[in-house]
């Protein structure tokens, strides 16, 4: 295995026997004002018939630019190919004229984008948007086009294809929209499909379904698949070969088994290590459950959005959009009972729409619960007025999901952190001194207090967000998906920081996440939510070993690359595919 150097010092490894796409020495230039000269620097890749090549990298690695440059979808002239070849069945696309490129796009090479909601025209029916491809590339009649579209919908297993043909994008679920995008890419049976993070915006269970579907369709049609992702779990799930990119350069390239089990380049190793393990953590120093008293007690908490349907019920049944929309009442939190012990870390796990964020917002007073009770160390918080909440604010604090949107861009970091303490009665000077200490505590320099949020990276901003939450010395810290907006390698650092702080400061942590791996990494207890209800709760180890509820089992089974991860990656493993 070691006689072939995979770290990109020597020539590229021998490609597949039947290459569809060959990229040779491809370089893409960035505009003059960018922080580096080349977005893609001398990258060479090959994808063969029926093969899946995963290109892995963090944000800014140039992976998406590389993928778009194949179809020449770059915003020229700001980004342009300056060197290299893109050979599709031997024809160099880098030299093709516009007319030829239009024939290639959609016909020979199709693309699936990350966010299906914004990738579809909101004002055009789904059927029309797919038929367009056939209009451009074939001379089929209307009826024939329609037949093909419906057949493709059946191929990607979309329910009720005749309805979807006439539907608008907003009338479908996220998973259905991504199936539509896949159907769109398959409709002319292209030689190559480029998928740019096609599952990143989807829920775990939906992601698993879409990945299975892609793999199955690819095998059936023998299409080559170039799959862009940042997630090594997904790589383990579907890749035949892997290419790792950093700062526009290819740092490692090889068969999936080799790369996953025996990464050559330190960067690849760091990325793989950063993927949170599915193995539940053990806490030798965790406080014993029997001695701790509950700090947060929730009983029968309910929150309903919207109001009951005003129209007749038969109308809502006929047109589901009415029932689902603003008119229908949605029980976001449905009779939740929860006890959280002092000093524990509890993960609230669920998919989008499970009510996990709403529950957290009710607990911190950003939403008013409709019914039930919630006690923070004996103090009732349901039904409190704004002024009634104020003394309790220092008990419970929140770290928000998006570090880019949750810090005021016009306020200095020091003021952002100190303000909470000042509102709680601290003198400004003391609060600022404390802010400096907090910045050091979260791993930043004290002089960061003088700067503005935009001068920091995503991970650093999330550290500032954590320092801000800690400024009022809370007992309970609610973290709402604090790492989902961050790159993988940064995720791990922030998670470790939270874990470390919790122990040093004796915090109780409520950790909201959709990712069971993240939950396993930092929490010793897990609460699984679905449709506003708790379907299962217990210790992380117990739930992972023996999930009781069917939904929990489904969530666990959906984690991409679970086989690879549960083996424990540091042990020597021969082959994983």
């Amino acid at each position: 295995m070691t006689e072939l150097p995979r770290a990109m010092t020597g020539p590229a490894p021998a490609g597949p026997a039947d290459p569809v796409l060959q990229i040779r020495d491809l370089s893409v230039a960035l505009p003059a004002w960018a922080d580096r000269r080349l977005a893609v620097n001398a990258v060479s890749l090959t994808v063969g018939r029926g093969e899946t090549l995963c290109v892995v990298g963090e944000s800014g690695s140039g992976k998406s630019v590389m993928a778009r440059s194949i179809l020449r979808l770059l915003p020229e002239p700001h980004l342009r190919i300056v060197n290299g070849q893109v050979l599709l069945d031997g024809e160099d696309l880098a030299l093709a004229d516009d007319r030829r490129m239009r024939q290639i796009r959609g016909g020979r090479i199709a693309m699936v984008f990350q966010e299906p909601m914004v990738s579809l025209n909101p004002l055009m029916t789904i059927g029309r948007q797919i038929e367009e491809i056939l209009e451009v590339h074939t001379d089929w009649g209307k009826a024939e086009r329609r037949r093909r579209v419906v057949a493709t919908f059946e191929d990607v297993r979309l329910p009720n294809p005749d309805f979807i043909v006439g539907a608008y994008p907003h009338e479908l679920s996220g998973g259905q929209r991504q199936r539509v995008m896949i159907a769109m890419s398959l409709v002319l049976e292209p030689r190559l499909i480029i998928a740019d993070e096609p599952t990143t915006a989807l829920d775990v269970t939906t992601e698993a379904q879409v990945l299975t579907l892609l793999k199955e369709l690819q095998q059936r049609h023998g299409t080559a698949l170039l799959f862009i992702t940042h997630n090594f779990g997904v790589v383990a799930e579907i890749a035949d070969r892997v290419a790792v990119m950093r700062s526009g350069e290819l740092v490692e390239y090889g068969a999936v088994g080799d790369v996953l089990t025996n990464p050559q380049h330190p960067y690849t190793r760091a990325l793989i290590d950063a993927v949170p393990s599915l193995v539940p953590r053990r806490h030798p120093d965790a406080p014993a459950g029997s001695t701790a008293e509950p700090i947060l007690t929730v009983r029968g908490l309910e929150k309903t959005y919207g109001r009951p349907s005003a129209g007749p019920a038969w109308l809502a049944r006929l047109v589901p959009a009415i029932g689902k929309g603003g008119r229908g009442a949605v029980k976001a939190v449905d009779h939740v009972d929860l006890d959280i012990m002092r000093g524990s870390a509890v993960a609230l796990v669920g998919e989008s729409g499970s009510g996990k964020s709403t529950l957290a917002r009710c607990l911190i007073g950003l939403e008013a619960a409709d019914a039930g009770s919630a006690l923070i160390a004996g103090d009732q918080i349901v039904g409190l007025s704004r002024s009634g909440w104020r003394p309790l604010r220092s008990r419970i604090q929140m770290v928000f999901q998006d570090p880019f949107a949750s810090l005021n861009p016009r306020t200095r970091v020091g003021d952002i952190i100190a303000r909470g303490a000042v509102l709680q009665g601290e003198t400004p000077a003391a609060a600022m001194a404390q802010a400096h200490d907090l910045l050091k505590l979260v791993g930043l320099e004290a002089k960061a207090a003088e700067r503005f949020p935009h001068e920091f990276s995503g991970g650093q901003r999330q550290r500032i967000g954590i320092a801000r939450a800690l400024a009022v010395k809370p007992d309970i810290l609610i973290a709402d998906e604090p790492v989902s907006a961050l790159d993988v390698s940064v995720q791990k650092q922030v998670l470790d920081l939270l874990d470390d702080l919790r122990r040093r400061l004796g915090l109780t942590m409520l950790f909201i996440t959709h990712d069971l791996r993240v939950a396993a990494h930092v929490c010793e207890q897990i609460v699984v939510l679905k449709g506003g209800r708790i379907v299962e709760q217990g210790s992380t180890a117990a739930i992972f070993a023996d999930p009781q509820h069917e939904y929990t089992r489904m969530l666990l089974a959906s984690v991409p690359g679970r086989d690879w991860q549960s083996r424990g990656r540091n042990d020597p493993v021969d082959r994983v595919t």
Partner: protein
Amino acid sequence: MRGMRLVRFILTRLLQAVPVVLGVVVLNFLLLQLAPGDAATVLAGEAGGAPAEYIEQLRARFGLDKPVLVQLGLYLKNILFLDLGFSFRNNSPVLGLILDRLWPTLLLMGATLVISVGGGVLLGVVAAIGVRTWRDHLISVAAVIAYATPLFWVGLMLILVFSIRLDWFPTSGMEDVVAFHEGWARVVDIAHHLVLPTITLSLFYLALYTRLMRATVLEQRGAEYATTARAKGLTERAITMRHVLRNALLPVVTMAGVQVGALLGGSVVVETVFAWPGLGQLAFQSLFARDFNLLLGIFFLSACLVVIVNIVVDVIYVLLDPRIRVGSST
């Protein structure tokens, strides 16, 4: 199904408009009470002075001697039966006066809307397609100049150049009253008179919609769905026409709906400059004559007009954007 819900939506909106319009009437009535003087003093003043008893007599005749709230109540009661009162100044019922002046104003507003929205959309698209070419620069610079120029000045300059110097268009009025044109000749004559006022009134809005359309087309062309369309193999032209245009129209429609009210205000200036016999000019005259009945009538009609246009805009919006659900009455 959708059609039925649309009709219900329109009826609901019309019902909701009733309190809005009544509120406008009450507010206008009370505001006008704040203006110094009334019709009686103005009439007396124009007659070169009159004894106090005569003014009192006039007031009694006009009903101006009653307490304000009683006057308001009477007025509201009359309005419910579409009786807008009597203009003592013009010696004829207000409703008739207004209806006579309504259609010239509607004609001017309609022509202006068509020119400014239609032209703005067209110019905006042309500028956006050729972004950073001479076409874009020409349109953008012209739009800024048109945007910054005051209405009345444009009107006066147009008259000066095209009517007085070049003698291409008439200086004022809506038709040649001494020519007694009939049929098509009259239509042509009115259209000829319409050109300058329309240009004057639309120039500002034309510039506004051009800039808005250019910006939204550029924004939408960068949207992900446009990239998807490009990845499907569509030509740039097809992408703009089929995908971008409709999405880019939505903000323009919203803006146009909001500005119909402002258009009515702008027409006061234009109608005065060009002696266009419309509502704006009538409002201007009645204000100085303290002919409050007439003024209130004009306000009432304007409010109705704005409400109706807003409903029309909402309906257009629903037709353009399938994401908007009609029927949810929130």
